């Protein structure tokens, strides 16, 4: 019985938009217009668009900060209009650019907000706070009792992230969470978020206006413009098969090096086609292609064996193939292959 339930939970998309639209009062046009898409468990989806494209409105309709004016949104199969607003929001983590930590509460009290309204036991909350602080790279002993005002912007957003994850939400909404941070801190937090997401298999919806960030973080990217989804696909598909002029213009602005920085080895690996030997050089599927290029130069290898989550070989990248790909020739990549 429980197995069936779990099975069912995994089959149903975590989030499903069905012809959703939003028109703000006194506006002439829809901020979001007739949008449908779905997000599966464990997906890291980035939403990319200019300001005014409707990307933030789209995100904020999920936790009903903005109410949709048409259509339906389903959360784990249930129409969110039928869910108790507070109960529902407690199952959805929320991180915003301005962070919004409660200045009069310690780091621990901030993180414990949702667990405490859910009436968790104190020991469970304390343990959870320490686990989360460690996860976001802050030493619990040092930071637990500090106040937000004494933290740097990067540290504050780490706490913001921990607070949003406190009650093990089924979905995380992130609205340009790293937008106000300096470039170095931003990059560190991006890398850590990817690691955390892979470790916990969290489902994330992440809004950004930064193409690199969108492509680097997202398993799939939603490109928004004028309130509509222009394309919803893997980074590699967007780069090679832009759905329309808007998308192709958007991605053509990026040069080859930038593209290598946002695509991962797994995305361009071709079928293995031979038995791996112990002397083969291996590379993880999640390594970005600029690092792969560096490895080619360092090792002068002819090819790398690409390995999956458990270290098992799942494909290969040859130097020839890589060169073709880096010149963005389509034969460099098996275009039918989905990014892993």
């Amino acid at each position, binding site marked *: 019985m429980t197995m069936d339930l779990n099975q069912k939970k995994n089959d149903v998309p975590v989030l499903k938009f069905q012809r959703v639209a939003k028109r703000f009062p006194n506006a002439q046009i829809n901020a979001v217009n007739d949008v449908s898409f779905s997000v599966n468990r464990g997906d890291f989806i980035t939403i990319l668009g200019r300001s005014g494209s409707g990307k933030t409105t789209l995100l904020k309709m999920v936790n009903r900060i903005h109410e949709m004016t048409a259509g339906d949104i389903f959360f784990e199969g249930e129409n969110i209009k039928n869910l108790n607003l*507070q109960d529902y929001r407690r199952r959805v983590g929320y991180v*915003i650019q301005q962070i919004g930590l409660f200045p009069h509460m310690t780091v621990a009290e901030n993180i414990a907000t949702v667990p405490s309204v859910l009436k968790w036991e104190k020991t469970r909350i304390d343990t959870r706070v320490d686990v989360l602080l460690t996860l976001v790279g802050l030493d619990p002993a040092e930071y637990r009792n500090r106040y937000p005002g004494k933290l740097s912007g990067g540290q504050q957003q780490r706490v913001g992230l921990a607070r949003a994850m406190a009650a093990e939400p089924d979905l995380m909404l992130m609205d340009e969470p790293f937008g106000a941070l300096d470039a170095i801190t931003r990059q560190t937090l991006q890398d850590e978020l990817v690691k955390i997401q892979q470790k916990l298999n969290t489902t994330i919806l992440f809004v950004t206006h930064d193409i690199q960030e969108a492509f680097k973080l997202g398993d799939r990217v939603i490109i928004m413009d004028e309130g509509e989804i222009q394309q919803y696909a893997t980074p590699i598909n967007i780069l090679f098969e832009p759905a329309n002029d808007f998308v192709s213009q958007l991605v053509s602005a990026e040069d080859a090096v930038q593209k290598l920085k946002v695509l991962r080895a797994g995305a361009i690996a071709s079928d293995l086609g031979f038995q791996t030997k112990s002397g083969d050089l291996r590379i993880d599927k999640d390594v970005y292609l600029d690092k792969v290029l560096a490895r080619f130069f360092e090792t002068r290898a002819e090819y790398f064996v690409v390995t999956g989550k458990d270290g098992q070989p799942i494909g290969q990248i040859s130097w020839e193939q890589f060169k073709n790909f880096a010149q963005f020739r389509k034969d460099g990549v098996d275009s039918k292959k989905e990014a892993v």
Partner: protein
Amino acid sequence: MAAFFSKFFPYFTKHWDDMGELLLDHLQIAFTVLGISLIVSAGLSILIYRSEFLSTAVLGLFGAIYSIPSLALFSVLVPLLGLGKPSAVFALVLYLQYILIRNILAGFHAISPAVLEAGAGMGLSPAQLFLRIRLPLALPIIIGGMRIAIVAAIGMTVIAATINAGGLGMLLFEGLRTHYPVKIVWGTLLCAGITWIANSLMYEIEKYCLKKANGELPAKEVIKSIYGKKVA
């Protein structure tokens, strides 16, 4: 001058019980006024908080009332409510609305919208959001308003003695009427004394609330770890 000092302290030893009574009467009026004013201003603030138009209108109205000299307002109210405490309390409550409502609104409007959006987005109910977030963050400015209000109330209660409301003003005005400086000075000193004490007390509370709101107090856990061990 020597005559003044020869009467100054003997007056106290002779009349300290009457003076004490007037002092308590004064405090009673001032705190009754403050209590009623807080309830009224809190209620009005809730009603007008969300509307910029209403906020401006109500503050404008009470601002205008605040500018009426107290003697003039008392003389308008006496025909309606009669001589004595009711007229005085009513007038003073009217005066304090401006100070209190202005600070209550300012306190709640000063909270960062991001903090409120984060709180609501995490699933805090309106009541939880109010008690855990809004109130503690708005409190320093509200307490600041109460501090000014209490000082104003103590001061204006003196004038209320002109319509026979009681309090230290009775002593002071009696001294004026009978050309008896000792009474005037004692009245003034006592009045200044309680104003100073009330102001200092409220100021300490205000500072504490401000530190609390800004996260500058030592955390509870830290206090526990320092003092808990000594006690145990």
